[in-house]
């Protein structure tokens, strides 16, 4: 039975995240971006909202079960506040969710509770590589069997909080397929390189990481000896990326709407001009449409529908273009003022282009 209505529980969570996004993240957004520095107390506060904890069953230290739909609703609201901080809050999910989705029973029991039961810590994952046509299903990084170990070689980029990481899932190619490996803290052969300087998300610490002959025991392969299916993990990354894009784009849309109701030109509010009004109408339509695409894809993930992979991809595909279109137009609506860093729209526009690259930086 079709329904577009979140449950009571989801609504309560969304309300809490909304307050956090509006009262904590948004006021800190500009300074964090200028200083390339997140306020980690705020990240901890976001962690304590318990979005990830609620996705993990009690036996592994959490208090709920995974719902991509719920996480999507939360991610949307959070990204409305600030994208960089949202990605930081969600970073430990990059470690926990693959374990939850694809880990063996032992892996889950051993590795999830220390993350979930503690304060926010830099548990992370390394997927992206330095290639213009980076393909998560065709990695350059390799993992080779050697006795009772896998040896990982390669270089990863855009790894959140790699500096001082507590634990990391590294994706590497095995028999032509993408497989995850748990790499423990300070493992030999792991070199954290320089922090990226990017077009957007300045506040989020993302690093290059080299893996040179990194030996991990065979038990550290996600899913054990048999390995795992990467599709649900990648699909979750796509959906998360789409949800964040929707939330942040909605922020840009709302800002532009408010501005268009106030600013006057030629004796009327600029919003009374069709050239502006139509842009806004199209922006609103796209935000709502991609939002529904994302909800449906998340729902398919939760239900394990046959076509979850395709729908997650379509949501991501739609979100990439929607975010660029909406954030670009938000700057346009503000004219020259949009170009000035006193308004947030230029920040959103720089972040907006990022969704074409960010799949892999968050999961739901």
């Amino acid at each position, binding site marked *: *039975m079709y329904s*577009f209505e979140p449950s009571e529980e989801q609504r309560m969570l969304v309300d809490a995240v909304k307050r956090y996004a509006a009262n904590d993240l948004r006021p800190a957004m500009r300074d964090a971006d200028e200083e390339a520095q997140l306020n980690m107390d705020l990240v901890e506060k976001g962690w304590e909202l318990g979005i990830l904890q609620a996705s993990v069953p009690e036996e592994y230290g959490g208090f709920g079960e995974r719902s991509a739909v719920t996480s999507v609703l939360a991610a949307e609201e959070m990204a409305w506040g600030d994208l960089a901080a949202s990605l930081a809050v969600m970073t430990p999910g990059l470690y926990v969710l693959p374990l939850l989705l694809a880990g063996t029973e032992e892996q889950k029991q051993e590795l999830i509770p220390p993350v979930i039961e503690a304060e926010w810590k830099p548990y992370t994952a390394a997927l992206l590589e330095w290639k213009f046509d980076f393909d998560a299903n065709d990695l350059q990084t390799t993992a080779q069997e050697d006795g009772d170990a896998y040896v990982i070689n390669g270089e990863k980029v855009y790894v959140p909080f790699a500096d001082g990481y507590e634990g990391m899932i590294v994706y590497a190619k095995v028999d032509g397929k993408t497989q995850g490996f748990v790499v423990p803290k300070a493992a030999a052969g792991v070199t954290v390189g320089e922090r990226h300087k990017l077009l957007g998300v300045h506040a989020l610490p993302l690093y290059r990481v080299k893996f040179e002959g990194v030996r991990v025991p065979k038990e550290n392969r996600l899913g054990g000896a048999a390995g795992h299916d990467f599709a649900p993990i990648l699909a979750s990354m796509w959906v998360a990326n789409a949800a964040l894009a929707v939330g942040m784009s909605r922020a840009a849309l709302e800002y532009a709407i408010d501005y268009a109701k106030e600013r006057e030109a030629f004796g009327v509010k600029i919003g*009374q001009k069709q050239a502006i009004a139509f842009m806004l109408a199209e922006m609103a339509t796209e935000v709502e*449409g991609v939002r*529904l695409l994302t909800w449906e894809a998340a729902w398919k993930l939760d*239900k394990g529908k046959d076509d979850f992979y395709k729908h997650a991809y*379509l949501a991501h595909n739609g979100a990439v273009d929607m975010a660029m279109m909406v954030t670009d137009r938000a700057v346009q609506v503000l004219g020259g003022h949009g170009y000035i860093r006193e308004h947030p729209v230029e920040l959103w526009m720089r972040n907006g282009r990022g969704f074409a690259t960010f799949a892999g930086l968050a999961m739901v």
Partner: protein
Amino acid sequence: MIDFEMPEVIAKQQYLLKTVADNMMRPVSRYYDEHEHEIPWDYIEFMHTAMKASGAGSLAPSEGGEKKEKKDRPRIGYQMLAFMIEMLSWGDAGMYLVTPGGGLGAAAVEATGTPEQKRRFLERFKKEKPAFAAMAMTEPCCGSDTAAIRTTAVLDKETNEWVLNGEKIFVTAGDKSLTPYEQLEPGFVVVWATIDPKAGRAGIRPFVVEAGTPGVKVTKLEHKMGIRVSDTAAIVLQNARIPFDNILGSPEVITDKKTSKGFKGAMSTFNATRPLVSASAMGVARATLELLKEMLKQEGVEIRYGLPRAKMTNIEREVIDMETMLREAWLLVLKAVWLADQRQPNALTASMSKVKAGEVVTKITQKAVELMGPLGYSRDFLLEKWFRDAKINDIFEGTGQINRLIVARQILGFHGAQLR
């Protein structure tokens, strides 16, 4: 709880209509495209019989959807309609418009009529023979600017009749609603006219004009780019007299020239019917995308999902973008009809769905013809026909621009005078 599971009754209905589309529509699609103004009687009679048997009687968005729905069950009437219309339009969007049962005319009666009027005007759709109804708003002077229509309705106090004068154009199914074909029950047209030309939109009211009313004439059938099997009629009203209580709605409110309730009635009709027009567009778009993928497959081209854009072929990129926009538009339609079923305000979502659907169906059909090259442009395939059929969806039930205006007014909180 957010849920995207299709109710079983809808799945069943969809399955049935797929058979209709495959067997009754697709095989004659090309024929009727090439024989404009011929009437597909087989289809009309089949659909009438089938709908009567299922107790539906009408494809109009009826409150009647509820009649069969038990009180304790969730309402899904509009959702069901959206799926049915999508599937029939997947078969042939023009023929869908030739489905008997009242279309936009019955929808207007449903949205604005009193219970007595609903009974009086809608019972014909359950009779032995099929019947049609139409809705006439547009005039030569004005389409988008509905408040400027010039057809007048003057009350003749002596006979207690309304006297209508004016000209309506582009009336979908106007011919089948008014012309006395022996295969059909007499139909009606809901004519929008002003009771006070100086009052602008406040003066506009809907009137039911029955087939056979003296002074009402179908003067022209248009020759069109697409949806050719659907008749588009011009109607002249010359001192056409209709009974007083053929004015839709309760007479006290409706004859009070100071309120614009009558006009608002028209607008509420559109909130109900807009997502359904969008649903029809979705059917054409899906048909196109499916055929395109099938033709590509025959040429050895399979679409791979999940690649980075830098690794896709151009065709993959185009097809995946088309699939994305189609799904997006469809979910907007679904949300709009779901809101209608929930009796929640849906004007914003309805217009969003229309904006998106009109754009998506034109883009997809245009791209498909482009991508298939000489094959796409050829009348050997239906792609070129769907290209022609598609365009109307960005025009009727409010053009793309008009629906953008409605969305913009809603999100900006402006009224019509502030943003026109």
